[in-house]
């Protein structure tokens, strides 16, 4: 009788332990549930500004490799069981202790602006980034609708004394950089994770509601909209009066900037996640199917396809006459725009999701391993990485 009691007790404990263990393993093994961030960099006066995966703005002096970091962006709320707090913009697996930064910082005047997954825009002094000069909305701001935080995934566009960005609440915002006040906001029907693009007085932004919007930058009035068959997350590229962007329907679209009419579309085998680049009337678009599609900008005619054997999610850069691509696995390729030849430049053996940055012939790559890798685009020399750890 006693042994059976023990057996029962053991069974109860075993089952409970099993459930907890499986829950922990199941959650812990899932990759991609924790917002980490993939900010690219921007260079101003030989200083590269980048949002680190520790939730800080980092300023790297490219001359002497010295580092300055801001205080970490403030979390909206604390994590729950097993580090899970999806409602707070967090996720599961590692325990959220920092704010993810996805958008590349922008520099305008004396300030560096950065958007956080905690739903806030931070403005830092270029020379002293330890504390933000101002934050929008303020840290003690309570939203009118008292809803959860509105994560910002896309980047910011700065133009004519204004900041433009989209939020996960589906709204496009325009802020006055002097007053830090909201000038206007434009609602869409779903989340916005795309970074807007501005050309003249028109702002272009894609939404999860499958539409690309052209808005009047002055007042946020809609000029036109273009409907696709999938959500739009890629940043639009404006070139020669044409907007190029990818959609979740696997097409790369070319739309007339004036009236929003379709010029052409090209279908890949997966999403065109990253913004394409253009050189000599030729579009270079990386796709999550592992290919780089080279297309004629005016007609969408296929010029060449390069198989990089790994998805491409980071925006490429143009250095001299070469287009530099990075795969998600960290293999760097250079495509010569003249001969359309490709060569592998380096293998970082690190995950790369964020946009690449080029400055004076050096390509800077922010990896998920909290490092800033540096590659000479001309000869492929890989310099020692700069650690972004604070």
């Amino acid at each position, binding site marked *: *009788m*006693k*042994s*059976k*009691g023990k057996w*029962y*007790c053991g*069974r*109860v404990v075993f*089952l*409970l332990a*099993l*459930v*907890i263990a*499986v*829950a922990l*393993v*199941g*959650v812990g*093994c*899932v*990759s*991609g*549930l*924790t*917002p*980490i961030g*993939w900010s690219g960099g921007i260079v101003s006066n030989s200083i590269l500004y980048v949002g680190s995966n520790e939730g800080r703005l980092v300023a790297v002096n490219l001359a002497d490799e010295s580092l300055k970091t801001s205080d970490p962006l403030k979390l909206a709320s604390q994590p*729950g*069981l*097993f580090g*899970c707090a*999806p*409602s707070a913009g967090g*996720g*599961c697996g590692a325990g959220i202790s920092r704010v*993810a930064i*996805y958008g590349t910082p922008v520099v305008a005047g004396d300030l560096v602006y950065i958007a956080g997954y905690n739903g806030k825009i931070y403005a830092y002094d270029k020379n002293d980034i330890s504390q933000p000069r101002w934050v929008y909305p303020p840290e003690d701001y309570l939203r009118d609708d008292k809803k*959860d935080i509105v994560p910002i*995934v896309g980047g910011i566009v700065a133009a004519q004394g204004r900041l433009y960005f989209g939020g996960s609440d589906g709204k496009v915002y325009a802020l006055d950089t002097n007053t830090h006040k909201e000038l206007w906001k434009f609602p869409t029907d779903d*989340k916005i*994770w795309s970074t807007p693009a501005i050309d003249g007085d028109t702002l272009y932004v894609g939404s*999860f509601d499958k539409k690309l919007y052209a808005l009047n930058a002055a007042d946020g009035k809609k000029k036109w909209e273009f409907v696709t*068959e*999938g*959500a739009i*997350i890629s940043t639009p590229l404006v070139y020669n009066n044409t907007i190029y962007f990818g959609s*979740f*329907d*696997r097409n790369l679209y070319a739309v007339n900037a004036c009236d929003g009419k379709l010029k052409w579309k090209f279908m890949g*085998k*997966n*999403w065109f*996640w990253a913004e394409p680049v253009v050189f000599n009337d030729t579009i270079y678009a990386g796709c*999550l199917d592992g290919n780089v599609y080279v297309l004629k900008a005016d007609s969408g005619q296929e010029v060449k396809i390069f198989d990089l054997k790994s*998805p491409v*999610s980071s925006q490429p850069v143009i250095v001299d006459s070469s287009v530099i691509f990075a795969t998600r696995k960290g293999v760097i390729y250079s495509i010569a725009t003249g001969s359309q030849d490709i060569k592998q430049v380096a293998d970082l053996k690190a995950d790369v*999701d964020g946009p690449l940055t080029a400055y004076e012939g050096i390509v800077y790559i922010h990896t998920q391993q909290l490092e800033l890798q540096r590659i000479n685009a001309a000869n492929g020399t890989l310099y020692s990485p700069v650690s972004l750890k604070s």
Partner: protein
Amino acid sequence: MNIWELIIQQPVINILIVMSHYLANNFGLAIIALTVIVNLALLPLTMSQIRSSKKMQDLQPKLVDLQKKYAKDKQKLAQEQMKLYKESGVRPAGCALTMIIQMPVWIALYQAIMLALAVAPEGLLNLSKYLYPWQVVYSVLPLNPDFLIMNLAQPNLILALLVGVTMWLQQKMSMTPQADPRQAQQANMMLWMMPILFAYMALNFTSGLSLYWVTSSVFRIILQYRVTGWGGLRKQAPTPASESDKKYLKFEAAQEKKSSKDAGADIVDADSISSRKGTRIFKTDKYKFQPDKDRERHRKK
């Protein structure tokens, strides 16, 4: 992709997405539909476990006999019990087996929910590698997380409570009456601990997973009801004062049930007898502990 992703995670993700598309872009309905399908696939196993549980109830009198017979030889008792289980086709670990088999589905579902609902940008980016090359899959992503008044990507208190309540009901219905107070105590602990644990987990995970648990529990409640009726949910008889009285009561109830039309648990019969006679059965002399008379009556039967 590894084997887990290829065999479990990828199909679950794509099935959920396609279902969501055909169910008016409602991810909640897709989760419910998938849960029903998973439970239907596990139906033979579940039914076997429920029937096993039912047999376990029927075996109680024999187990009591064995306990009496081999009270001083625990090893022999264990052997005889196992022999009895084997002969009767009872699998004591059946419940655990069903739960363990479902665990990969929970994990895959959790992963699918987190990835498909674009809870984190990295999740959506990673999702791309799991998608089958069907246009319908690409065009509906990312999925709408709203279901009724809930956001399936976030925890929900009401659904977490429902997880606990439905799981408790289901466990209570399938509970086997225990002759041994220690076993009864363990079973009772299990009855409360599991629902509390799952409700707590539901409070911290996405409510999409909670929706799966609730639907699954409701499905099993229906099955349980069809096989055993309300089972342990029926009003339980008061515990007799002595150990031997309790054993006797279980024994009698089980014997009575065999001749009745009802297919419920032992306690069900006791209640039905009580209601038919219009008296409280435990006050009658018939149910008093009378070892000699009882053995004699049992032999005659």
